[in-house]
């Protein structure tokens, strides 16, 4: 082999290895998700763990979701009122805010906030259990860690993210109303009427389908990165960071896909 070909060969080998490793990880994650979902239909069911996790993930995330929703709605109203005023269309502020919040911003921002708080929490908690052999101890005691730790977190996150998104929708609309009434001096009744009349069935469906997918992504990525932690405490830190980054990117990517599918299923009139 000529010496000039060596770098190209090495590059190809490295590329092959990277792609193979990436494909193996995707396959492993898919099997992990399949097992987590299948466990929903298999005994035993850890109801108390589901309620505990719902409390930790849901109630614990309410303050950040409330603040995020309220101020996002407020800033939307602030920006849109200024732009719409140029066309004498300030009356459409409510419509603009409610459509943006319910279709896109509430699900995505709630997903990202919960991801930052809980995907990292799940990865670090489960990762610490892995490196201190607590997961092995659980298996040695005859308990399936997937059923005990992963499935309850998955069910809880899917359910509470749905509810948190409704909270963000409500608070976003309220935040927009506060800005519209107290800063832009619009009529409150007109704002709410415009916000309500703009919404159709497909908007609600779109806005409430997304958190179900996002919740699944947050829980499965957080648990997957935690359960596959290697390398001691440094590995726990790495898993935590990766869980937040991957789940955030996947939330935004899946948001695009869901929006595309929803627009295909419910074409605009």
């Amino acid at each position: 082999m000529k010496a000039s070909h060596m770098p190209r060969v090495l590059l190809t080998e490295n590329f092959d290895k990277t792609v193979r490793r990436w494909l193996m990880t995707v396959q492993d994650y898919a099997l992990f998700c399949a097992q987590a979902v299948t466990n929903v239909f298999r005994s035993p069911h850890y109801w108390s763990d589901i309620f505990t996790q719902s409390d930790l993930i849901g109630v614990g995330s309410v303050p950040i979701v409330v603040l995020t929703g309220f101020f996002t709605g407020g800033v939307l109203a602030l920006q849109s009122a200024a732009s719409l005023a140029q066309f004498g269309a300030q009356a459409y502020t409510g419509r603009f805010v409610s459509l943006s919040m319910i279709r896109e911003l509430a699900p995505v921002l709630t997903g990202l906030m919960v991801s930052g708080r809980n995907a990292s929490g799940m990865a670090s908690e489960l990762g610490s259990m892995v490196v201190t052999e607590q997961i092995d101890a659980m298996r040695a005691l005859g308990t399936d860690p997937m059923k005990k730790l992963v499935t309850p977190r998955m069910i809880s996150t899917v359910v509470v993210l749905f509810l948190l998104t409704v909270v963000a929708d409500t608070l976003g609309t309220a935040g927009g109303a506060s800005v519209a009434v107290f800063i832009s001096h619009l009529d409150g009744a007109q704002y709410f009427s415009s916000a309500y009349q703009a919404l159709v069935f497909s908007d609600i469906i779109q806005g409430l389908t997304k958190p179900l997918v996002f919740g699944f992504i947050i829980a499965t990525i957080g648990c997957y990165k935690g359960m596959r932690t290697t390398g001691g405490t440094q590995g726990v830190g790495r898993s935590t960071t990766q869980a937040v980054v991957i789940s955030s990117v996947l939330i935004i990517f899946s948001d695009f896909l869901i929006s595309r599918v929803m627009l295909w299923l419910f074409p605009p009139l």
Partner: protein
Amino acid sequence: MPQATDPVPLPAVNDPAACVSDSPLCFRSVSLSFGPRTLLDAISFTLRPGETRILLGLAGMGKSTLLKLANGLIRPDSGEIFLFGQPIASMPEPALLDLRRRTGMVFQESALFDSLTVRDNVGWQLIERGISGETIDRRVHRALSFVDLDHAFSLFPPSLSGGMRRRVSIARAIIDKPDLILYDSPTGGLDPVTSHTINQLVVKERDVYKTPAILVTHRLQDAFTMVTHRFDHDTNAMVPLPQGSFDPLTRFMVLHNGHLLFDGSTEELLSSDDPFLQDFLA
């Protein structure tokens, strides 16, 4: 040189039928590699009913890995492992979970669940089975009394010392009267006094319940304490056997460079002319 006691008649060590019938644990040509390194190479042994096997070896020779293979926490690359007569090398995880409930395992670093109290750690298996809280409390108290830690019932593991954590781990392993106990360096990292307490508990478990066990250690002193002592019910303490006597149901295995270098009784170990063993025992 100490003299051996009369041997107790036991099934043949390499009888293949014993693997399936009455042996709690049996390895047949088990091999395991991590990358290019062969950690365990064609390991075969049979643990007989009532027997305690002490697994010796230098650090990093695969002693803890062998213990994890024994209850299916790790799968071998080749060979077969019989746990309570059932082949587990390729057994599905749900079926393995049922078998593991018949074993107790004491981990090197205790592996207690930090977010749960000692009561919930020790009573884990009972809680999982949905047994009433009152019964769980009673049995946890009994298990904690066995390891002399009844006062730790409501404490959380982070508030316990290393020795206390190890004793809680033993209580967790024995609470459901397992048919096999796996001890992974139960005295590792402990001071001599605490190590003595742990050794005493292991001997107590061996002599009171006669549960078959594998004990991994790299501390020769602990290993020989095990074979030269018995548990005395009257004084509730470990007492030495008569000079030159060994516990006949406690045997040795030595793991070295991936191979089972030695598998036999105390007197066979002491009379071995293998250079490594002589060096190891010196």
